[in-house]
């Protein structure tokens, strides 16, 4: 039996010590009629070699398309050392550091992570991570309601230029505690969220304003004006940011006159592979005065009995295992292993490396937009300055075009027409430092082919 070491002799010796005749006796407290029959839905056991063949065949079937999708998950080169160290058994198979003395490796790594991510976002404190960027936004909204004592409304202004899945997730998770999410429209020409769009809410009781930078379309928002407006109206600012972009962009702690109050985002770009959607991690940083309202674990540095520095989980009194129904959240795990990888990634890249990744990604996207925008019928949707993503409008519905590109081994971007019907045949594309001029040329050539293959809206296969 896989992974069970006991021989018959071991089992007999254990039963003797227990004073039972058989393993079945040990289940005598469980009513007989509850016993399960054979599990016919589970295949017979495969050994490692056999399951390896199955998995390899399935992976080969999926292949490795040339990827130009961003939309919240970004392909960057990950130094080999990152996961070689992260998957060491001492990191991989350790548990939550409840026995601090036996977990200094994990705890010091998280302390270093907290330091790096707080500085990157320009804030004073960080937690040890949340599940992902979308759920982190939900938690930030709940935290803003707790932290903004002057506001009673629990109303959150949520621009439509914020990632649509993040908005759905915030509603699904935070909506059950009577939060009121109000949409704010974006500018159709520039693709950003101008301050005058918030004006309709001036003078009303707003708990928080969410600002995503860069926004879902890759466009750069005027974060200073938006932040100052929010504060002038008694609202907290929740920033949702891309960590790579922060190597080049003004961090949320420096937005406007006073800086953002809570910062969240997805840390996936920092050394975490795309991996079909997870595991990623959500980061959350904040002003020091809000630290006791932060959900999740936090690592602190302290001294041991001999006066030596050491690390431990702290401020646990806020958490579910102590506070129970009054907890700041029900969160138990963080994303420990993934945060370990991100910390090693940031340590290896350093400030220079992260800047280079960010600027190379911006440059490649500029190149991509030029190449694709030159094709007949394709328009660049927005005039605003962008980071490493852009919205294009196509002369035909996007979905069949993407299918045709998929058949050519290219993941050509994300069809956003479903979430933004007013934008028409809208395609969100992204290029990072991993793409070369040849890759971009190949994409442009393939797209040109696909678009010129007749005008069938169903995109039937042309050989």
């Amino acid at each position, binding site marked *: 039996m896989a992974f069970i070491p006991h021989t018959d002799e071991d089992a007999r010796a254990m039963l003797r010590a227990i004073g039972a005749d058989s393993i079945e006796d040990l289940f005598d407290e469980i009513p007989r009629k509850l016993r399960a029959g*054979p599990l016919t839905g589970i295949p017979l056991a495969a050994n490692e070699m056999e399951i390896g063949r199955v998995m*390899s065949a399935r992976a080969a079937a999926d292949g490795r398309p040339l990827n130009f999708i961003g939309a919240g998950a970004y392909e960057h080169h990950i130094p080999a050392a990152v996961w070689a160290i992260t998957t060491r058994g001492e*990191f991989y198979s350790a548990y939550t550091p409840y026995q601090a003395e036996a977990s200094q490796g994990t705890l010091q790594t998280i302390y270093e992570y907290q330091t790096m991510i707080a500085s990157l976002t320009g804030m004073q404190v960080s937690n040890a991570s949340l599940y992902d960027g979308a*759920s982190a936004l939900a938690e930030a909204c709940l935290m803003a309601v707790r932290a903004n004592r002057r506001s009673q409304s629990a109303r959150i202004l949520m621009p439509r230029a914020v990632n649509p*899945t993040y908005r759905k997730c915030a509603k699904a998770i935070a909506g059950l505690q009577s939060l009121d999410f109000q949409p704010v429209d974006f500018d159709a020409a520039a693709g950003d969220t101008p301050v005058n769009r918030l004006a309709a809410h001036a003078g009303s009781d707003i708990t928080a304003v969410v600002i995503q930078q860069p926004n879902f379309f890759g466009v750069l928002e005027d974060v200073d004006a938006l932040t100052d407006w929010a504060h002038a109206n008694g609202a907290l600012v929740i920033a949702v940011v891309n960590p790579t972009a922060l190597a080049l962009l003004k961090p949320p702690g420096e937005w406007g006159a006073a800086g953002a109050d809570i910062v969240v985002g997805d840390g996936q770009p920092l050394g975490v592979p795309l991996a079909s959607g997870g595991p990623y991690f959500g980061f959350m940083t904040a002003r020091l005065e809000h630290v006791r309202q932060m959900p999740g674990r936090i690592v602190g540095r*302290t001294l041991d009995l001999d006066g030596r520095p050491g690390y431990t989980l702290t401020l646990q009194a806020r958490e579910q295992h102590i506070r129970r129904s009054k907890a700041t959240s*029900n969160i138990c795990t963080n994303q420990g292993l993934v945060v370990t990888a991100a910390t090693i990634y940031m*340590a290896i*890249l350093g400030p220079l490396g992260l800047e280079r990744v960010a600027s190379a990604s911006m440059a490649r996207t500029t190149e991509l937009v030029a190449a694709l925008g030159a094709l007949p019928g394709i328009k660049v949707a927005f005039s605003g300055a962008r980071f490493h993503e852009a919205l294009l409008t196509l002369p035909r519905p996007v979905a069949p075009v993407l299918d045709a590109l998929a058949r050519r081994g290219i993941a050509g971007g994300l069809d956003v027409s479903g979430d933004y019907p007013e934008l028409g045949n809208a395609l969100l594309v992204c290029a990072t430092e991993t793409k070369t001029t040849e890759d971009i040329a190949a994409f442009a050539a393939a797209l040109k082919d696909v678009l010129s293959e007749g005008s069938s809206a169903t995109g039937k296969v042309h050989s």
Partner: protein
Amino acid sequence: MSTANPAAGPTMAARELTVFELSRPGRNATAQMPAVLGAVVPEHLRRRRRPLLPELSELQAVRHYTRLSQLNFSIDTQFYPLGSCTMKYNPRGCNEYAMLPEFLGRHPLAPASQGQGFLTCLFELQEMLKDVTGMQGVSLTPMAGAQGEFAGVAMIRAYHLARGDTARDEIVVPQAAHGTNPATATMCGMKVIEIPCNAEGDCDLERLRQVVGPRTAGIMLTNPSTLGVFERTIADIEAAVHGAGGLLYYDGANLNAILGKVRPGDMGFDVIHMNLHKTFSTPHGGGGPGAGAVGVGSRLLPFLPIPMVGRDGETYRWLVEADRPQSIGRLSGFMGNAGVLLRAYIYMRMVGREGMGRIGEYATLAANYMLARLRQAGFEPAYPTRRATHEFIITLRREARDPGVTAMDVAKRLLDYGFHAPTTYFPLLVPECLLIEPTETETKEAMDGFVDAMVAILREAGEDASRVKGAPYTLPVRRLDDVRAAKHLDLTWKPPT
């Protein structure tokens, strides 16, 4: 018995410097620097000051984090009988095949046509989890047990609202429940009604019958319970709650005890969350990532969180809002912790039909063996008349009075003996408790070694309690000042002024 710590790195005398103290301005990992490609950020949005990130050579970074890893206890290096955490072996093969480059490189939003291999694995995982739990539908999206709990309670709420029953805003929770249970109920806008357990560890049925009624949305139960014993009156509990119009939620934290022997669906549960990082052996990773898949009976099928994997003939695709209009919605940015799910899939395939039935048996055998040996050695079980399930509780309340060592002291001294301590002080109901769960993957010798260490520590305590109270001695740090940590917050490294 060795008192040396096998987990310590080569030099324990000097503390590990932080990565910032190892940095030198201008150093970098040259092989990792992308070529310079210029990009211009608008003036008013430009970052002025560099963030505090390390400036190191690649070797420095590798050495630093490798050395840090060596300061940890882990399943790969120590016996780790943490009750309720199911610290079984994390098979290397699961990691190997979950990290095949094609799976790692795939964008979550790539078309389904480019992900049939991946989607096949997830669909089959959904089906296997349905079978092993006796449920009708499974969603793999919750990213942790706590998120699975949230999904479960949110679905119960959605079910009652869909029936037009808006009065049900109470969730019944046993006093011994894990803290996530009441915290989850609050997150879903519900009120928590606690019921006590009796001295035998079963839920107080009389009290339950008193508190259930037209305001009861449901009850959250763990079975076996957090006290390490099987909830014998589950049939009566089910009748009481269903009879009052409420639903039954199963916290799957202790599923390892009954895996293959009993199915929660057969016990009458309407919804269950599973901890794939416990029962299905995905790595604990120093505190995550986990995965909290949820399973439901037919009543709650329409409400499952999205996305889920569906099959049209031979093709797999994601089921989204349009397919599942009554879903409670999305809980993540994409589809949950895909890499964790692949590991769970591979594990279940390697364990297989024959193996699945054995896990509950051997986990229970191992726990009962340790209980018997510890009892023989003079330790006091919290529920002496009950069988252990996959775990059991020892109370050190006598030892706390005489010779004056607490569960905390014993736990810290166990670290010196090279064992990770069991869970301490949970459940809160039992004073000075150790919750011990060996799992089915540990040898008899490992378990004997642990019992011998406990006996030795008790003897030490009798000779000189202060020796035990001052533990640990052989780890990178001595006991840490928690009060100082919470009062004088030092949460980020700052350069010396």
